[in-house]
């Protein structure tokens, strides 16, 4: 007795899944509201650039030269200078975090600024946040070099500096952190929909006993899995479209590669995420455990170990090796490349191949682990 009606069963499963997604506020929240919040948060709220840093300027003996130097700080968008009279006052302000750094021009500034042995200015930076500390240091340096340049130009002679650094920043010339955060957050969103949501909805079927009722119908394992994969695949691609549209239109992130590569690679990643979500729910069968596991093995790594915020190259070797088993890592490389650099095939091929291998791996395990039995 071979069974026909496979299409009818599959259609029934998919229709049911859609109705459930549309009627369940928590699915909508995870699929649409959470991505929007994440995008807005990372697009507007989080910035790794230091801008308008409050900076104490202590000028002990103001004159023509100090005026022209401090003017550089007032013109820069990176600083919000706070003029102060004594270094003690400035140090108190730094301790109370009123300012994040101090530039101190001593009384002998005007006389000694070109002498090699006497440092003409002192810079004190709050190093609690090492990252922004380094940034402030760099920006102050920049203002100083620029001013020296100008001075040399005015006095008609070349500056006697041994090496001059010519800086040029490719792919993200304005060095906007938003330009790489927004593509990166897409990986997190796809993980949310693919792994977390899928893990939740299937374990819910076990918990509410609907799975047992499904298993005794003539529906096959393949139909059950497809019935789950297809709707959430479509939902995930919908989430992607929403995110890409917001990235391009709201946050004005450039897309230098092609849409085809972007969507093709995203589909591969989504299949991997779905595979993981299905596997988690098959093994745990309990919403609470499934959510915990999904967050720990898919969501957090997508955040921390994918290179989306924290640079993989600067991680310790052990953790760097760990990132090779994180699917989001490959996807984030592709995303950042496609958005900011273009279709660079030497980056895309190996990463896409890794994603395809992982997708196959997870889906194959799910197929083996899912049986029409309760034991």
């Amino acid at each position, binding site marked *: 007795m071979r069974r026909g009606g496979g299409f009818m069963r599959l259609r029934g499963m998919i*229709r049911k899944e859609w109705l459930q997604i549309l009627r369940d506020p928590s699915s909508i929240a995870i699929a649409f509201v959470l991505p929007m919040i994440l995008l807005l948060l990372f697009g507007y709220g989080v910035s790794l650039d230091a801008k308008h840093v409050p900076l104490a300027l202590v000028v002990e003996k103001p004159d023509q030269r100090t005026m022209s130097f401090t003017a550089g700080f007032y013109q820069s968008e990176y600083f919000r200078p706070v003029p102060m009279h004594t270094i003690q006052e400035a140090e108190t302000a730094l301790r109370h975090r009123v300012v994040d750094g101090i530039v101190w021009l001593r009384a002998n500034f005007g006389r000694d600024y070109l002498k090699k042995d006497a440092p003409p200015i002192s810079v004190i930076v709050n190093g609690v946040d090492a990252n922004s500390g380094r940034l402030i240091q760099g920006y102050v340096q920049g203002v100083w070099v620029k001013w020296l340049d100008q001075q040399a130009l005015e006095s008609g002679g070349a500056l006697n500096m041994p090496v001059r650094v010519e800086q040029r920043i490719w792919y993200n010339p304005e060095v906007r952190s938003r330009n790489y955060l927004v593509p990166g957050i897409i990986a997190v969103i796809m993980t949310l929909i693919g792994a977390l949501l899928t893990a939740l909805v299937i374990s819910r079927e076990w918990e509410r006993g609907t799975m047992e009722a499904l298993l005794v119908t003539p529906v096959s394992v393949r139909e059950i899995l497809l019935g789950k994969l297809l709707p959430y695949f479509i939902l995930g691609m919908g989430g992607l479209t929403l995110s890409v549209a917001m990235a391009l239109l709201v946050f004005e992130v450039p897309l230098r590669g092609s849409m085809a590569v972007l969507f093709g690679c995203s589909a591969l990643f989504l299949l991997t995420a779905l595979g993981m979500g299905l596997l988690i729910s098959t093994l745990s069968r309990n919403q609470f455990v499934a959510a915990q596991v999904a967050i720990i093995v898919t969501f957090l790594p997508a955040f921390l170990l994918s290179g989306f915020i924290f640079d993989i190259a600067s991680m310790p070797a052990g953790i760097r090796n760990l990132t090779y088993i994180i699917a989001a890592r490959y996807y984030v490389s592709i995303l950042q490349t496609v958005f900011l650099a273009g279709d660079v095939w030497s980056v895309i091929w190996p990463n896409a191949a890794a994603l395809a291998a992982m997708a196959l791996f997870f889906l194959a395990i799910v197929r083996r682990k899912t049986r029409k039995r309760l034991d």
Partner: protein
Amino acid sequence: MNAPRPVIDLKRVVRTFTVGKRRITALKEVDLAVRPGMVTGLIGPDGAGKTTLMRLCAGLLTPDSGNVSVMGLDAAKAPLEVQASIGYMPQRFGLYEDLTVAENMALYADLQGVPRARRAVRYDELLDMAGLRPFMGRLAGRLSGGMKQKLGLVCTLVRPPKLLLLDEPTVGVDPVSRRELWQIVYRLVEKEGMSVLLSTAYLDEAERCREVVLMHRGQVLGQGPPDSFSRNVGGRTWFVTAPHVSKRRLQGELARRQEVLDALILGRGVRVVTLAAGDPGAWLPDIEGIRAEAVEPRFEDSFIDLLKKRTETGDGGSTIRVRRPVEGVQGQDAIVVENLTRRFGDFYAVRGIDFRVRRGEVFGLLGANGAGKTTTFRMLCGLLPISDGRCLVDGVDLRRAAARARARIGYMAQKFSLYGELSVVQNLRFFSSAYNLKGKRQRARMQWAMTTFGLEEFADTRSASLPLGYKQRLALSAALMHEPGILFLDEPTSGVDPLARREFWVHINALAEQGVTVLVTTHFMEEAEYCDRLVIMAEGEVLTAGTPEETKALFQKPGRAEVTMEDAFIGLLEARRRKREAA
């Protein structure tokens, strides 16, 4: 005689499960044949192996050894073929709560491959049968418990199966819906010639089956028509009354006799099953006016008969003793409830109810799920604020001094609410210190609990792995640590097998005899008989209050058979519905 081929045939089936490090045998060499064209009842307490057996038949589990044949097919080797010809409704049927009735039906029609053209006719039949037609557009999650169960059955039947497996379809369903479910099952057997295997923990449902399979601890104790079981106890069932003695004392006296197998309070007297033929009235000549009349045996009697011969339980008496005389002014009511109301938004969970519980009384709160029993209970325990009305526990107003009132009550929650990871001793120590018991007194109370409830042998066992009956004892002893004068029991015996249930009531009766007031909720209608007085609730209101006899008398017509508590309950609900329709 050439018997028709059985629809289910089990041969020496063994199935074990591993839970943690322990190996549990769910089925021990079970042989069973289910005959076609009738309702076969699979009856036994929780943990008997009913669900495992059902799942084996549905091809959801494979046996460790032995052979499961369903409709002539091997369920282990060809589960898909078996599933294509049977209907199976699991204990918690998987309705999609955010789909409507119609959508749930369409889903199962798709999954079962019912051709589109044939659906309309089938839907019509099923909807009429289940009375769900007016609710087609309603979300399944918004249906009442009974309607959900009927919808589950309808979904199982969209493609008419030849064999229907129903796993405890009537659990947690109110008596009215329970009756309707049975009517549907009968019609299926009559009209469609279906064979039905139905499992249940309610012993009174046995009498509704053509054939009964009695299971206990993974074994089949017997199989046959229900009256064949009752015949075993023929001539040994009595109804004993004594006008000058409380029924509880009478029950205690009878239960202590060697010759008595079972003594159960029923109405104004005690129902007795004896070990051998003989008049129990003659055994207690000291009791003035004692009278015993022979009564018809019931299925439950034979069940107890079969079980008690196998399992060794203690005698029927209770050694429970209340050390401290029960406090409180004599004659003052232990619990006074006046116009008690609880609103959730604009929904009234409890609507202006009144009742009084006298000291030393066993008082019952009866009602289907959602009737407002648990809400009332929580308000009485001070766990839920009162919206309106007044509520005195031991003379203390709950609105003013909930904590003081709480110290005088013992509470046993519906689910096992002790710490499963802690041992018996650790649980007792924790609960006694939670009630401020320290030092010598704490040790004395713990010792009391261990000896009274026979917990010594399990002292260091993890509570989660205790047998169900012992969990029940432990929970009761934890509630009694601080010697409360009032005891609250929320569905104390649901899911407990009849033996453990009897034993539990023996303790409760002993407590009541010594002046402890007991307030109990239950959906077991026969347990209502143990109460001195009771109220029946529906939709947050009290329908009737009185003794069990008074309640039943409302529906007793002269010359008709004696009504049961369930008849009275259904009668009250129907009267209410008629009144509402008329309005």
